[in-house]
């Protein structure tokens, strides 16, 4: 569907809504009648304090190589080192002293309008203002002399995804965002019920599956990670993160079975922008996002869920775009180089045309925001779960038909060779950024779920009594992954993900209500929870990745309310069996009908055992560090 067609469909829906509204107005006296509509809302302040003395290591301010002297030994492949020097990445202006990860003021409202007895308009609006910048020091491009990588934007862009997805216009038809604010409508749809049929038309969230946080059957929509990333209050799962989509969704109740189908406009996952506190893409990458190529594409799918004997079974199939997309090298995606002289570190002056001749056809551009040494290159590659050697080789061989070979660049067989060649590049041209493009491929996903409730009537006090166990699995044939060397040829492999969840309420003592407990296990064959291919795991500044066989994680969480439910004590733990642990103790307090306070700590440890880059928690730890969060809400 073309954009013009989308516009026509949108206009049609609005006209339909208006028509229905007006007809309803005639059908019942007074379409402004207060009995027809409800309005409620919440004002909330979210604050997260960083408890460690570091900043996000993929951002300019938190790069661990800042102010650190590194020895370089430049050499062409097959030759001994010729140039020796040392370099120190961006200097004292970038001392990582920020202790505020998040300071967001948000307002939300819900508006329901009853058009007719079986037709409603449901709207939920959200406005968020990020205030962290106003209180704490932040990154400025001018601090490092970066001229183009941040497009001379002196502000850190918290919300407008166009900062990362530079070549696209508004990414979502129901969102308006800028540097430090966003306004959107996570729900804006007509809800129609006719007997057993429920139809929703408009912007909406669609969530499937019994597992919490482990998104196995929950395949329909991506995540918006600009508001506290995935580190928000665990008890809320992804309700604030799931990306709403303009969609048509029909649900039909057939006895104990629910049949459901949807068609939706594709909306991608939105990752935090460069140099924002929860960013997880190295800020030296310049991303050329190709969402425009697929923004009018339709994803669709269906699900059936019902009871068969003692089991609850469900099956789903969907054809949908990979929400995060896939990355690969691309030549000068933003045209930084072609009109500018490039600096040559060994020469006192910039030579005309060097930008166009050397860098425009390549995947790199000289800028202080980039990588300064071979060692840093491999450190960044390990942290990003990439292979530094193949990434170098692919950038030489695959971009613009091996353009860099013209300048004697050659692929390397091992880390030492690659590190020396990279050192030589950096010695010659200074720090280099990387140009990558982000594409979204469509694939098929098939899922099955099976649920069973354990009952022990003869032992009602057993913790297993009324325990609900669900197994869910999805299979994705020919799933497209980012190649760990950022090759222009993506990885394609059949992928299988399996999860098990057991949940129960158990009363430990008559004095307190039952504790809600959840145990979960997830096994992924090819990629981690963020979609990174497992063959990129295990690398660091001294080693190329060896990969891991599978991703496995377990979760234990509980919620223990006080006798009156005014207080609730939550705990969530995620253990990556490769040595990562995320702990989140939390407390929730609702002192009155209007006020609610949440406080929680995220404790992240990515170095329990094994290699740090073999688990996913280290990635979260590198980004946010341990943090203490508060949320104070007033609802009306």
């Amino acid at each position, binding site marked *: 569907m073309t954009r013009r067609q989308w516009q026509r469909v949108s206009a049609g829906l609005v006209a339909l809504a208006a028509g229905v509204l007006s007809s309803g107005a005639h059908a019942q006296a007074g379409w402004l009648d207060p*009995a027809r509509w409800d309005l*409620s809302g919440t004002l909330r302040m979210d604050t997260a304090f960083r408890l460690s003395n570091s900043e996000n290591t993929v951002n300019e301010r938190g790069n661990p190589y800042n102010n650190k002297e590194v020895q370089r030994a430049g050499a062409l492949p097959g030759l001994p080192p010729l140039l020796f020097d040392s370099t120190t990445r961006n200097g004292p202006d970038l001392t990582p002293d920020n202790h505020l990860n998040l300071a967001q003021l948000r307002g939300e409202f*819900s508006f329901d309008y009853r058009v007719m007895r079986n037709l409603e308009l449901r709207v939920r609006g959200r406005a968020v203002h990020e205030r962290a910048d106003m209180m704490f020091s932040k990154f400025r491009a001018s601090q490092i002399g970066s001229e183009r990588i941040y497009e001379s934007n002196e502000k850190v862009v918290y919300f407008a995804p166009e900062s990362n997805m530079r070549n696209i216009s508004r990414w979502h038809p129901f969102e308006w965002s800028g540097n430090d604010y966003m306004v959107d409508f996570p729900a804006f749809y007509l809800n129609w*019920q006719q007997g057993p049929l429920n139809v929703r038309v408009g912007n909406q969230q669609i969530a499937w599956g019994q597992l919490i946080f482990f998104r196995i059957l929950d395949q329909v929509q991506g995540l918006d990670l600009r508001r506290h990333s995935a580190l928000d209050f665990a008890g809320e*799962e992804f*309700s604030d993160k799931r990306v709403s989509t303009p969609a048509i969704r029909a649900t039909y109740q057939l006895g104990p079975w629910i049949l459901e189908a949807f068609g939706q406009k594709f909306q991608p996952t939105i990752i935090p922008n460069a140099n924002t506190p929860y960013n997880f893409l190295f800020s030296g990458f310049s991303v050329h996002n190709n969402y425009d190529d697929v923004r009018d594409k339709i994803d669709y799918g269906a699900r059936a869920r019902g009871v068969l004997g003692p089991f609850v079974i469900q099956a789903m199939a969907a054809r949908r775009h990979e929400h995060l997309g896939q990355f690969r090298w691309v030549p000068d995606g933003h045209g930084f180089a072609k009109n500018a002289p490039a600096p040559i570190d060994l020469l006192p002056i910039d030579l005309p045309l060097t930008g166009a001749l050397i860098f425009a056809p390549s995947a790199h551009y000289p800028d202080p925001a980039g990588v300064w040494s071979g060692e840093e290159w491999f450190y960044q590659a390990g942290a990003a779960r990439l292979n530094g050697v193949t990434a170098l080789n692919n950038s030489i061989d695959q971009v613009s038909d091996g353009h860099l070979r013209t300048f004697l660049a050659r692929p390397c067989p091992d880390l030492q060779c690659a590190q020396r060649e990279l050192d030589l590049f950096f010695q010659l041209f200074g720090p280099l950024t990387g140009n990558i493009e982000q594409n979204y491929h469509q694939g098929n996903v098939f899922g099955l779920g099976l649920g069973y409730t354990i009952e022990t009537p003869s032992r009602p006090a057993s913790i297993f009594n009324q325990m609900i166990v669900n197994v869910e699995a999805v299979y994705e044939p020919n799933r497209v992954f980012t190649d760990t060397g950022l090759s222009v040829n993506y990885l394609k492999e059949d992928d299988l993900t399996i999860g098990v969840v057991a949940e129960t309420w158990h009363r430990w003592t*008559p004095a307190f209500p039952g504790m809600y407990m959840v145990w979960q296990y997830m096994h992924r064959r090819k990629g981690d929870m963020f979609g990174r291919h497992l063959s990129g795991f295990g690398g660091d500044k001294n080693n190329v990745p060896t990969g891991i066989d599978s991703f496995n994680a377990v979760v234990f969480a509980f919620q223990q309310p006080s006798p009156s*439910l*005014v207080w609730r004590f939550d705990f969530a733990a995620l253990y990556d069996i490769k040595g990562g642990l995320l702990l989140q103790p939390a407390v929730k307090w609702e*002192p009155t009908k209007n006020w609610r306070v949440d406080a929680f700590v995220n404790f992240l440890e990515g170095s329990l055992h094994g290699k740090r880059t073999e688990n996913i928690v280290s990635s979260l730890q590198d980004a946010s560090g341990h943090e203490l969060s508060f949320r104070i809400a007033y609802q009306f």
Partner: protein
Amino acid sequence: MPLARALAKDGDSARAYPDELLSIEEWSGGRLKPGDEINAGNVDLVEALLDPIRYAQIKDMGRTLQLRATTTDVSRLMPVPYLEATLRNAGRARFDARGNVVSDDGGPWIGGNPFPDPRDGVEAFAGHTLSWGRHDAVVYPFKTYALTGDGVPRYEYEGAWAELSPVARVVMEPRPHWPGHENRLRYQSLLFVYPESVSGTAYLNIWPYDHHAFPELYGYLPQFRRIRKLPTDQRFEPLVPGSNLYLSDAWAAGDPLHTWGDYRIVWRGPVLAAVSGGWNPEHPDWAHATHGGPRGQTFWDTAVELVPEAIAVEARPVKFPRAPVGKKCVWFDARTMLPLSMVSYDRRGELFRSFDGAYGVYASGDRQVMAGDYPYWSWTHVHGFDIQSGSMTRLEQVREVRGGHRLMVYDQAIYQRYLTETALQRHGL
């Protein structure tokens, strides 16, 4: 004349009881009469007619009760179709080997109260558990207010409660059983629409006909944006912050019959209860006025009358080994087997919580709400009180709540609108 015969004759209970049990004036020897107020100054006169917690509330917390004349026309004390079915099907109920109530053909019960003249405690509870609200299907819009021990109204909620019986139906077709659903006792859902923090939260309980089995529980929780199956055996927790109401408290018989046990009748006698006149048509929303407590907002204004005979039944939560409740005592109106009040005790045997409801026909003067061919009869308000903390939860049935949820009764559309997973999804945002 025995009660059953009196009711069968013309629906008037007056012939079954002596005059002193039909008039508060007679009973009190002229010291009280309809129109009088029961308060701390005279509550000792009627202590024998009150459960211990209501007595304490009046004596110590400023609660008052307005006296009205005894209603003897039983058709004003429950829905007429249910009464007619009770009389029509008298003597046809029994327990099968599993302990389920069945009719003489061995199938699920066919409507009305199977044990209108209960011989023991389990019969008293069985009839009531089969049909809480005495309607085949109904949606109650409600508002509830939770007050702290010092009388401060801290929380306020709005929602809708829906019940539908697929068996023992007395009005709705098909009846008495809904083909294909005979293995279910009840579909029941609870939906919250206010405030924002709970709006969209909805639970669906599907009760098996097996009186031992726990319902299946499905929940739509806004934070998950989807329906999830939930464990169902924890039924002694507040549903929302600050509230004193548990799932187990519903209609004083919120759990499957045989998850409680040791049922026994412990007392019979007259009581004061709000069995009629509870509807307040003067308020456009049918809201009730309050009084008493530290801030004058703890208790609903309530009119009570002398109920000639109540049956007090005790039971213990035998399938809930760590329940905070050690036992409960429910007072049933012997004429209707409706629960009048409930007092529960903690596991130490101390007084714990109490519930007392008010009922009435929704007709007054020229104003009435119809339910099929007859004026609507239902509960009107409920007190849920924790005597150990002093906290009170007040609940009232209102005309309409946010979301456009209005009273519905005897309407099969209730099933699709409130009692399926699709319905839960529709109400969730």
